[in-house]
């Protein structure tokens, strides 16, 4: 019985923590300036986390790496923060150390730009929060031109043509005038 009590307490604490993380939902902040290339752990002492690329972008394949420490046989990412499935099982890193896990996901195209804090939970009890940024991506094609080369002639031929025709009319007028004067 002495051994059962701590187990029940631990289970209750873990459940409460899980519920809090799930209910927290997406928490993007407004600052999304691309800055660092590697996200670092913020809470667990022996836990190392990394996001690549950081900043990422909507629709981009993004890799989350975590080192849970020895004796960990699985790790779970809380994807609800990113608009994905709630619990996503991470995979053991091929060729990596024991306790290393990795997960590559395609961020939803609808994800809002900002700073995100998804969590990871290791089977050895370690837990941590990633921090990484999602940069905005232009959603509309750019408007770069007003059709000047497609619609305007922009040529000096028109005024030159007008000038020559005016000279022709003048020359014709002078010739006719001389003809009239010659008759008189």
């Amino acid at each position, binding site marked *: 019985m002495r051994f059962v009590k701590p187990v029940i307490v631990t289970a209750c604490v873990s459940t409460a923590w899980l519920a809090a993380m799930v209910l927290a939902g997406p928490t993007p902040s407004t600052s999304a300036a691309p800055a660092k290339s590697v996200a670092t752990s913020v809470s667990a002492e022996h836990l190392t986390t990394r996001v690549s690329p950081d900043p990422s972008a909507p629709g981009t394949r993004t890799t989350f790496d975590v080192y849970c420490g020895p004796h960990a046989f699985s790790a779970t990412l809380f994807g609800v923060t990113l608009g994905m499935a709630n619990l996503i099982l991470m995979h053991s890193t091929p060729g990596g150390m024991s306790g290393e896990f990795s997960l590559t996901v395609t961020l939803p195209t609808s994800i809002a730009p900002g700073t995100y804090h998804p969590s990871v939970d290791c089977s050895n009890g370690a837990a941590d929060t990633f921090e990484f940024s999602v940069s905005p991506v232009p959603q509309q094609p750019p408007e770069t031109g007003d059709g000047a080369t497609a619609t305007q002639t922009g040529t000096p031929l028109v005024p030159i043509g007008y000038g020559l025709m005016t000279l022709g009319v003048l020359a*014709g007028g002078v010739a006719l005038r001389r003809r009239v004067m010659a008759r008189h």
Partner: protein
Amino acid sequence: MIRFIRNWLIGAAIVLTLTGAAMWYMGKHELRWQPPTRPPAWEAKAAKSGTVPVTNAKPLKRAQPVRIYIPKIRVWARIEPRGLRRNGAVGVPSLKTPFLTTWFDRGPAPGQRGTAAIYGHVDADKVGPAVFYRLGSLRRKDLIYVTLASSDVAIFRVYSIAMYAKTQFPTATIYRYTHWPTLRLITCGGRFDPATHHYLSNVVVFASYVGARR
């Protein structure tokens, strides 16, 4: 003598009037500028496949691009940073500064890992051809030099060039993250719709980082 001058004047009047009329007609109906060059369809293959040529050059740290030089199409232009507009479109230069280019400053910088994007006008009122008028003439292996505020010059090599209808603009293909530094040069192209005063397509040049020099 008077008759000779009179006949000469009549002849000159006829020649001048006919020549003037012909020039007026040509000026009115013939375009001085050719429409912007359309890239051939086969140049878009590499962009479609998503394969990015990689070298062993070292990617650069983030620094604001300040100048772009493209020898093949004789472009030597200033670059200004721009963000996004409220409608989700990227900020582009004003039509009053048609020889200026802009860089999407919310994304990676040229030479950094990822996809950097630079925009320029294809044409503009009163000047005709603008800074990226000949962008469609670029071909694979052409070089692009981007001078950064750090004094580094990031060098890119074109690996694809494509034209996309604005109604089917492939945002993911163009802006997706690349693990190698890449560059996109974007302008308008294709058919111009006089009713909406917009081009119906965009020309996009895909280039990959090959190194840097000081």
